[in-house]
């Protein structure tokens, strides 16, 4: 009888303390250019190193995992087509490497192939009435008006997958926690994107006023002394 009561207690306790998963931390990672597109551009040739955005994302994901509360899910959203085509160009399976990294980190990997798929995940990937986004980081190409998930990968110096400030209206305005921390690590986001972000979601987004530099490993840094982070 006592054994039965003990087991019953375990079941009850387990139920009471099961994580409700009320918060989600998201790292959004854009893709690299193809070397074919960027060949011969000298100092402005982008993405010589194929995992520049990935390495920075991994650092941030690890930080998030380390500080995550039991009810926090850490999710890694990656724009798949760019890594698939770069894989083909290089003769390496970058997609498998990305899966391994996510598995090692213990984060929820979710590929997306288009802006529409990204928006769908943000709005409906989890029940946003119950699970708000508590932390959001973007690593990838950008200008002040756009996140560019694809850049110079399909078409030279152009993008076929992006999230413009005008597209923010496609994302439900209440997906973020009221105390959410958002940051774009891409170039120029603080010059315009942050303002539109705050206007849409009522949470600030830190962004660079100027360029950011992914070339030296670690989290990106501002490229010039006069650049700064803004929101």
């Amino acid at each position, binding site marked *: 009888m*006592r054994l039965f009561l*003990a087991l019953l207690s*375990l079941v009850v*306790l*387990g139920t009471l*303390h099961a994580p409700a998963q009320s918060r989600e931390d998201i790292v959004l990672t854009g893709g*690299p250019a193809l*070397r*074919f597109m960027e*060949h*011969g551009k000298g100092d*402005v040739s*982008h993405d010589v*190193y*194929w995992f*520049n955005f990935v*390495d920075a994302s*991994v650092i941030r994901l*690890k930080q998030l*995992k380390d500080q*995550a509360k*039991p009810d926090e899910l850490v999710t890694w959203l990656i724009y798949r087509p760019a890594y698939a085509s770069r894989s083909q*160009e*290089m*003769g*390496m399976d970058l997609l498998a490497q990305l899966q391994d990294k996510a598995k*090692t980190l*213990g984060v929820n990997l979710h590929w997306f192939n288009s802006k529409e798929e990204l928006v769908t995940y943000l709005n409906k990937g989890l029940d946003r009435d119950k699970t708000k986004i508590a932390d959001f980081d973007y690593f*990838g*190409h*950008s*200008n*002040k*008006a*756009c996140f*560019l998930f694809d*850049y*110079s990968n*399909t*078409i*030279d*110096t*152009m*993008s*076929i997958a992006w999230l413009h*400030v*005008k597209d923010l209206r496609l994302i439900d305005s209440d997906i973020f926690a009221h105390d959410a921390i958002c940051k774009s690590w*891409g*170039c*120029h986001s603080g*010059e*315009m994107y942050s303002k539109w972000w705050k206007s849409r979601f009522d949470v600030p987004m830190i962004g660079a006023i100027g*360029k*950011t530099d*992914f*070339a*030296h*490993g*670690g989290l990106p840094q501002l*490229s010039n002394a006069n650049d700064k982070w803004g929101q």
Partner: protein
Amino acid sequence: MRPILLFAFLAASLVLSTGLLPAQEAVYHAPAGEAPPVAPPLKKGSPLDHLANDPKVAAPTIGYKEGNIKGDATWIAHRLIDDMGGQGWGWVKKSGDGWGSAKWVTLQETPGLAVAPHRKLVKADADLNWEYKLWGKFALYKAYDPRMDEQLPVFVLEGYEVIGPAAPLSIKVGPPDRIQHRPSGASSREGRPILSDPGVD
């Protein structure tokens, strides 16, 4: 003894279920400050190998053909460079139509099949005002030009034939939004070009 064991068992269950124990430490160590890994060597015969190592010419060769050029060419193109800094490639119209119906496009190359003719030139603008027969199709999607904050039709190139130099066209360069001064609703369009290069690696 049994109550003690039972208590220990319950306590351990409580700790585990509330997540008080830290998650297993991730073993991945991101590079910090070191040089990135070396890319694999160029594959012989790959599009990048051809681009890097094939000899370049000063001007296109009239009659030169590349890619899939089966059947009659459906499209005629006039190469032009956008003086405002946009990355459009030129005008494309249906064969037989007037240039008034042409679209200002960006060219989506198909490496390994057909790439932009200027890839073979010493200078990328050496085919300014040259015309081409094109094989391919318009994509269902548009491309975003980050320099100009505008969208362009995409022509997916499958093959081409060099026609030759032609007289300049008297059509305004750019997509319809730019030519017709239609406001986009985003203040990013004020004071084009946007003058914020995409991120750098």
